[in-house]
């Protein structure tokens, strides 16, 4: 909608003021880039991204409430080049390279900064990486999700996994049920299953992933199937394979 000579819009997201100032200072040498906003936390970043539709996002990883990975899951990745800025090198840097985004390790040199910027420019127009897959690969291996971030319109909700009763697959979405409330998230149920602790969550059915703590009993249903009854009375179908998984898990516990 703007003229083709429009400036690049950048967002700087970091909870430390000095870290933001440093990036802003380095960007002053690039008149073609305009800093649309600075954000001190993930919530602000999600809001500002929706509002400004930036081309470039400098994203800190360790921030209060929402981490950089959480932010990535909540924004529309179309047209945004993301450069992670972090002091933590253990966040599987390989993932960033595979998904063709760059990262800056604090502290970084101007040369490194320029190189990252150049990479982002070169990638402009490429197909954006799948943010959920990216955040899944970037998460340290062997570490399971402790909370799930969901965006309902402009509201961001954090669901601690212990509060999640069950998840239901709905085409490209999962419906996350907690305390009787449902939250929709764009993710496959297999993707969700893979990021949760398999000792706590069981795939009892092609379309259902249940929190084991909530299951009170299993009852036969019809002649060849079963239902799981949760502590709040909800009944969920259990497939034959799902029953086998449930049984082996409960046997392990006993």
């Amino acid at each position, binding site marked *: 909608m703007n003229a083709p000579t429009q400036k690049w819009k950048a967002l700087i997201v970091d909870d*430390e003021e*000095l870290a933001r100032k440093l990036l802003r*200072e380095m960007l002053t040498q690039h008149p073609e880039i305009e800093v649309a906003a600075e954000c001190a936390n993930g919530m602000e970043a999600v809001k500002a991204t929706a509002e400004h539709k930036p081309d470039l996002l400098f994203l800190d990883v360790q921030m209060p409430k929402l981490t950089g990975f959480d932010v990535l899951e909540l924004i529309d990745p179309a047209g945004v080049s993301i450069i992670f800025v972090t*002091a933590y090198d253990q966040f599987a840097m390989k993932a960033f390279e595979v998904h063709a985004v760059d990262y800056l390790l604090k502290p970084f040199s101007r040369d490194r900064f320029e190189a990252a910027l150049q990479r982002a420019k070169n990638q402009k127009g490429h197909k954006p990486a799948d943010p959920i897959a990216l955040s899944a690969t970037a998460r340290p291996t062997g570490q399971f999700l402790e909370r799930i971030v969901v965006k309902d319109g402009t509201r961001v909700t954090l669901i*601690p996994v212990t509060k999640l009763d069950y998840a239901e697959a709905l085409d490209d979405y999962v419906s996350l049920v907690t305390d009787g409330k449902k939250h929709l998230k764009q993710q496959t149920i297999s993707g969700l299953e893979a990021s949760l602790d398999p000792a706590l969550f069981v795939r009892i059915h092609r379309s259902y992933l249940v929190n084991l703590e909530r299951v009170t009993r299993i009852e036969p249903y019809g002649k060849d199937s079963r239902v799981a009854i949760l502590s709040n009375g909800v009944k969920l179908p259990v497939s034959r394979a799902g029953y086998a998984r449930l049984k082996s898990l409960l046997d392990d516990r006993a």
Partner: protein
Amino acid sequence: MSSVAKTSPAVQSKHIVFWTGWIFFTLVLAALLASSSDLPWKHAFLLAAILSGIAQVSAQSSFVSCRIAPLTRTPLWRLFATHIAAAVLLTFFWVKVGSIVVVEFDAHESWRGVAKIYQDKTSLLHAAGVFFYLLCVAFNYALIAQTSSREAQARALESSLRARDAELSALKAQINPHFLYNSLNSISALTSIDPVRARDMCVLLADFLRMTLGLGEKALIPLQTELDLLDKYCAIEKVRFGDRLYLEEQIQDDARQCLLPPLLLQPLVENAVVHGIAQMTEGGRIRLQAIRSNGRITLTVENTWDPEAGPSRRNGVGLKNVQRRLEARYGKEAQLEAKAEDDLFRVSMGFPAETEAPAS
């Protein structure tokens, strides 16, 4: 360790001992049998070789009895009793077995009369047997002493290496690399925005590192020294977090000189910053408290935290380390408690108050 030789050095040296002993005793016996007798030298050597071979059984058993009665831990009388008894017994059997062999030889034409010569030399053979056995004992003790001193050397080396490893990992645990990276990033930002503050920050960081490394070597330091270190640490973190970090100290004056293992509070305050302050958008408060009463000192580190920031990983390395160090120093007198309630996380510890370093 040689990759060519199939046998280990220990087995090799055993072989050497066996063959040297055998050859040596063969020569002794041959001389003994041939002198002042009609036995030809050739026969004397053959017979001596066989008798010496049989005697190797007592040589081997001397090795066992040396193990059973270690030189340094056995009373002298028992040492003598054991070996003399073994020497007499084994020699008696050896001479007996030898006489059976000799009788066999005597049946042959060319060996006729050998039994008689053997008979005549019985007392000499007994003496030689006892002598040989005691020689073996002496040799075995020497061998045991040598290997044990070599083992002791290896053990001393290993334990000194292990101690250094522990020291290094303790230091590594104390200085969190991400603390350094983030501080350096702050300096990097300040160099153009505010060079004077950049320099101050460099000095603070250097002071903190110098103190941390210096304190690690000491067994006990006054609380005041630890507090000075914490002031530096918090000053550095305040550059990063600004108003988000608020530190409050409630230190009783007579607690300041109490002694404690160094860097006991620092990891707890660092936890409070990393898991408390850094996780809260609006920041939070850290409260340090030291109370001395009834001969004990109670230290508390308390911080505000966000219970919604996910399950806390507070039972981490830092807290465990503090607990281990407290137990090592004060045993059952030490007490440590970590508690999360609402929006406060509190670690408090107590141990006997000491004010001057005990004579070492």
